[in-house]
């Protein structure tokens, strides 16, 4: 490596690690976010349904016995006014009313999902208690695999968002800041090669990329068991190509502006739609069919889809070919246009 390319790369790296805020936002923040989302959306054990039994008849006692045997139900004996209040305030989801002999009445709000669920569970327990036999034999097997939970969905999204943010901010701000401080002009007054100046961003970006990906993927694998089912080398290829595309986008944004304010506006304008549309926190399939082609053409959508295919489905690069093509196209177009319109002085 030439001296100048090494010194420029070291400069990029020093400028980055000597800025504690930058370190936090680019390396620690995605992890903090994954912890928050992992806790907020963790899968809970099946919930216990609370309900009230009213009345003192034989039917009431039989119902309570039957309900007591069912594991997902907690039934409590209550007086009618007390039961009505408990239902209204949501303490119980259903009132089983057995005041009239040989007849049971379910009192509940049929617009409440938990009440409808409680009615099904309670009725099932009571009917079985009275000797109902099911015509069809069934067995149950619980499937709670890692890979289909919310945290599994969101970690690749956070990874993609990090690649975008660090590429656009990291490269864009540094260049615009150098132009604003006339440092870029000063560098142009030396024999420094422009290719090496831009190359130093690529090298330092790749180095940080390894840290960034390793920290987030490693942390979420250990803390939440988020799987990486595809090949790690192929995951690295996707991340590397994504970083190039977002770096080129950052370069394009930074090609002209002379002020940080001007660049910030352009950066937000670029990133905001992708934060919303590209399936970081929720699936982009939720948006109307008419705008799906646009969403699929966005670089972050392509990166997120490719990352999810690799990490969650173990898909190979051949499967994510279209996504890789989109990412590569963004890189090429942004890079060529950026070089053509770049304001060096």
């Amino acid at each position: 490596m030439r001296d100048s390319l090494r010194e420029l790369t070291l400069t990029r790296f020093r400028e980055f690690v000597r800025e504690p805020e930058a370190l936090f936002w680019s390396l620690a923040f995605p992890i903090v976010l994954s912890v928050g989302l992992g806790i907020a959306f963790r899968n809970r054990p099946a919930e216990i349904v609370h309900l009230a039994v009213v009345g003192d008849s034989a039917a009431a006692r039989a119902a309570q016995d039957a309900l007591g045997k069912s594991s997902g139900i907690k039934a409590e004996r209550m007086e009618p006014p007390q039961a009505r209040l408990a239902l209204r305030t949501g303490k119980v989801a259903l009132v089983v009313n057995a005041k009239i002999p040989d007849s049971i009445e379910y009192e509940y709000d049929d617009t409440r999902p938990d009440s409808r669920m409680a009615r099904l569970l309670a009725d099932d327990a009571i009917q079985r208690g009275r000797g109902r036999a099911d015509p069809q034999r069934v067995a149950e097997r619980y499937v709670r695999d890692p890979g289909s939970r919310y945290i599994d969905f969101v970690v690749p999204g956070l990874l993609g968002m990090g690649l975008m943010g660090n590429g656009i901010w990291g490269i864009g701000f540094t260049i615009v800041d150098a132009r604003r401080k006339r440092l870029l002009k000063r560098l142009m007054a030396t024999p420094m090669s422009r290719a090496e100046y831009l190359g130093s961003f690529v090298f330092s970006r790749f180095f940080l990329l390894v840290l960034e990906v390793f920290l987030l993927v490693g942390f979420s694998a250990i803390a939440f068991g988020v799987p990486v089912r595809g090949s790690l080398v192929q995951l690295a290829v996707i991340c590397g190509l994504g970083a190039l595309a977002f770096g080129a986008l950052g370069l394009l944004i930074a090609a002209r502006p002379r002020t940080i304010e001007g660049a910030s506006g352009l950066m937000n304008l670029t990133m905001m739609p992708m934060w919303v549309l590209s399936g970081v926190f929720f699936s982009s399939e939720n948006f109307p069919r008419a705008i799906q082609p646009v969403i699929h053409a966005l670089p972050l959508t392509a990166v997120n889809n490719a990352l999810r295919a690799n990490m969650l489905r173990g898909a190979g690069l051949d499967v994510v070919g279209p996504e890789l093509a989109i990412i590569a196209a963004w890189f090429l177009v942004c890079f060529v246009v950026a070089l053509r319109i770049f304001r060096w002085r």
Partner: protein
Amino acid sequence: MTDTALAIRGLHKSYGDVRAVSDLDLSVPVGECFGLLGPNGAGKTTTIEICEGLLEPDSGEVEVLGMRWQHDEHALRELLGIQLQETQLSEKLTVAETVRLFRSFYKKGRAVDDVITLVQLEEKTRARVGTLSGGQKQRLAVACAIVGDPKLLFLDEPTTGLDPQSRRQLWDLITQFRAEGRTVVLTTHYMDEAERLCDRVAIVDHGKVIALDTPRALIASLGAEHVIGFTLEGEPTPIDETALRALAGVTAARRDNGAFELTSKELRLTIPSLLAFLERNRLRLAELRSHSATLEDVFVSLTGRHLRDA
């Protein structure tokens, strides 16, 4: 290598309607310290940045070390040292890292430690640029300019905004560089700086060279070596300036509001003559000063304005 370090012919540069440089010619021989002296906005920075290949002239020819920017940009960059006005070097880097970065751009150059010693920043080698004082930052900028061992050094207002001690340190540095037989082209709006450092000075105003010579010859062109300034007590009195010019030894007289300025060949003749004149006209002095003529006085006599308020 030619004997001419810098040759400019018929240089023009406009920004919209504003003519920054207008038909400017200059020639600087190798080994000279050449100064562009003029008020802010005179076109000094535009001129020097065209010479540095950072701005395109509208028309005119620029030859640097016998080469042209259009053909030999890469070779020229290796031979020039440049310090720009208002460059902010990266605050996160240390002094040594900054100089090493600039050294890495040049094929040949000086040792990083030597340059840091030369600009007297040895004690700050490991200090971040952000912690340096203005004078230290400026010396670091000069260090970055000379680390490529340039044949020609361009300095744009190198001491603007510095305290007297920092200015003298920079002057020593430039004098030393110049003593090694290299060429320096600098801009300044301080006449003392130009007088002290430069072999020849071009006085620039409104994008034109209005005088060009050694500082001594420029001052001598006033035809006088002393300047006497005085103000009078009481209401501003109309004094005939021709009467003042008739005083012994006086070569020129001018009036700026209530203040008068005489240039004189011989102070010992002019002062008694002036006092006698005031006595005759029943005028009383409020203030009387005199100093040896400077480039500032040359500028005033050429433009009728002072450098600092031009």
